[in-house]
């Protein structure tokens, strides 16, 4: 009898093996094949961006003009062809990954943090605080984001730091709105009141109970913003406020190629595909994360 009980105990323990939260999120994420594809793609891009110096030479291939070899279509020597100044597009793409991915990711994290703080405060406390914060966000939203970014960079001077700051600020209102609306839907639920009845502090309720329950739309918005961010850099570069030529950067490669698009379509197709792959991989990651973070979808 006693032995039986022990045996049963062991069986139960095996069945209800304790998994830590992070482990179980990873477990659920791994099950999602598409999300894993996105994750692998993104990791490959990061590795290429980091080890770009080992693959090609920055000075010779990516920056120095070589008019003899200009506007070649993809061939054995230049895998992706060359641009109108004879620079190897493959080299420029992998060096461009550094700036585009870096700026994109930093912008998203900065604007998401700012937007989450503002949106969460506005949504949770409501009333006057909500009104004041959201009307300020409305003022920002009324200005087109590129114009806002241009004016910020123009005021603070060019440079990668100011560029990041400008683009983050111009994205904050969008995130604030989305975070606020998702918080409003979660705020009224019973378990928030139950948490209050346990004596939980407001900040803890927001961080531990509300945001994790409202994360879905926020993640989707964040991954989608990545694409528009990369394109915004190119617009800023175009007016001379973004990344300065000849530094390779996907967005400006795309807009430079536009002039020759009719005769040499690879000039726009290749950076276009690079941007698309980056955005798609992030989107898949975001989608998978959203599902993995929600234990109700487990099984």
């Amino acid at each position: 009898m006693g032995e039986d009980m022990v045996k049963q105990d062991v069986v139960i323990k095996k069945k209800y093996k304790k998994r830590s939260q992070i482990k179980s999120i990873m477990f659920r994420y791994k099950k999602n094949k598409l999300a894993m594809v996105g994750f692998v793609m993104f990791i490959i891009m990061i590795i290429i961006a980091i080890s770009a110096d080992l693959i090609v030479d920055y000075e010779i291939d990516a920056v120095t003009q070589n008019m003899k070899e200009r506007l070649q279509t993809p061939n054995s020597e230049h895998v992706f062809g060359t641009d109108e100044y004879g620079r190897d597009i493959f080299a420029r793409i992998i060096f461009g990954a550094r700036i585009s991915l870096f700026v994109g990711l930093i912008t998203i994290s900065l604007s998401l943090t700012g937007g989450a703080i503002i949106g969460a405060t506005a949504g949770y406390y409501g009333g006057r605080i909500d009104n004041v914060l959201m009307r300020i966000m409305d003022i920002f939203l009324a200005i087109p984001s590129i114009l806002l970014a241009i004016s910020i960079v123009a005021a603070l001077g060019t440079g990668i730091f100011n560029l990041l700051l400008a683009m983050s600020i111009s994205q904050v209102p969008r995130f604030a709105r989305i975070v606020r609306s998702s918080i409003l839907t979660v705020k009224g639920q019973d378990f928030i009141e139950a948490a209050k009845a346990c004596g939980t502090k407001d900040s803890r309720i927001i961080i531990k109970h509300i945001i994790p329950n409202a994360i879905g739309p926020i993640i989707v918005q964040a991954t989608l913003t990545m694409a528009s961010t990369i394109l915004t850099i190119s617009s800023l570069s175009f007016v001379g406020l973004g990344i300065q030529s000849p530094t390779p950067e996907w967005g400006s490669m795309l807009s430079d190629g536009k002039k020759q698009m009719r005769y040499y379509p690879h000039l726009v197709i290749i950076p276009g595909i690079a941007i698309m792959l980056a955005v798609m991989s992030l989107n898949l990651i975001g989608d998978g994360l959203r599902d993995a973070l929600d234990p109700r979808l487990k099984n």
Partner: protein
Amino acid sequence: MSEKLLEIENLYVEYETDEEIVKAVNGLNLIINKGETLGLVGETGAGKSTTALSIMKLLPEKVGIIKDGSIILGDINITKASDADMRLLRGNSISMIFQDPMTSLNPILTIGEQISEVLELHNKEMKKEDISKRVDEILELVGLPKERKAEYPHQFSGGMKQRVVIAIALACEPKLLLADEPTTALDVTIQAQVLEMMADLKEKLNTSMILITHDLGVVAQTCDRVAIMYAGEIIELGTDKDVFESENHHPYTTGLFGSIPDLTKATKRLNPIDGLMPDPTDLPIGCAFHARCPKCMDICKKNKPKEIKKGSHMIKCHLY
């Protein structure tokens, strides 16, 4: 036994909206002793939940206002306590069980995390292992296997979820437990189990409990004293014997008993109370029940009845 734990005196609570003022609680007096269970009975809208929320000071911000009166727990005046003080009280000295266990657990945290959260909040110096040990203990106490603490609320049935909710409420061994219709969302068999368990635990931890319900059967089973509420006032208060067995009753209580079937008598039809609860934005002068009262007298329309006490039994009616 009869040591005072909670004393509510002359409590008035109003909900102020842009269009109207809703008078939810009107001059409520209540004393709860240590280790005692009080059943708070009444129709929907009688102000039962509002009373509970005022004790927790969780009335909706800017809308729900305590107009007058005092709530005193031990030596703390809750009506005057600051937000920070209230946070220390909630979950620790007073805790609340909500009506619907399906929605009162956070769907994305495991139940173990949710139970340990209360413990962490109120026992800052407690070590992690101790907390996890205590979580195991509490789970066993409410009759759940401790191995299931790593599971999420959606993996439990309704009755089990209510056990988890009760576990959270009792984690810090509160002095006072407010149970707001804890069994309404459960089916009858589970109801009986949960009530029995709550009564057991209450005994073990020597907790006082206010059980809010509109089920007189539940009250008869579990409560030491019963308070009948109508339009924000307590109109009858007494031990369960006073309310269930004595001769004298408030006409409303008589009406309530008339509207539940009695197994020992042959009746063709039940006698429900006619009419509806008075509009809380526009309460009548005199006794709040006079419009529906079968024994209404002239004086009932003019003067508010006073509390008339006979031993432990209190009735608020002009008849006595």
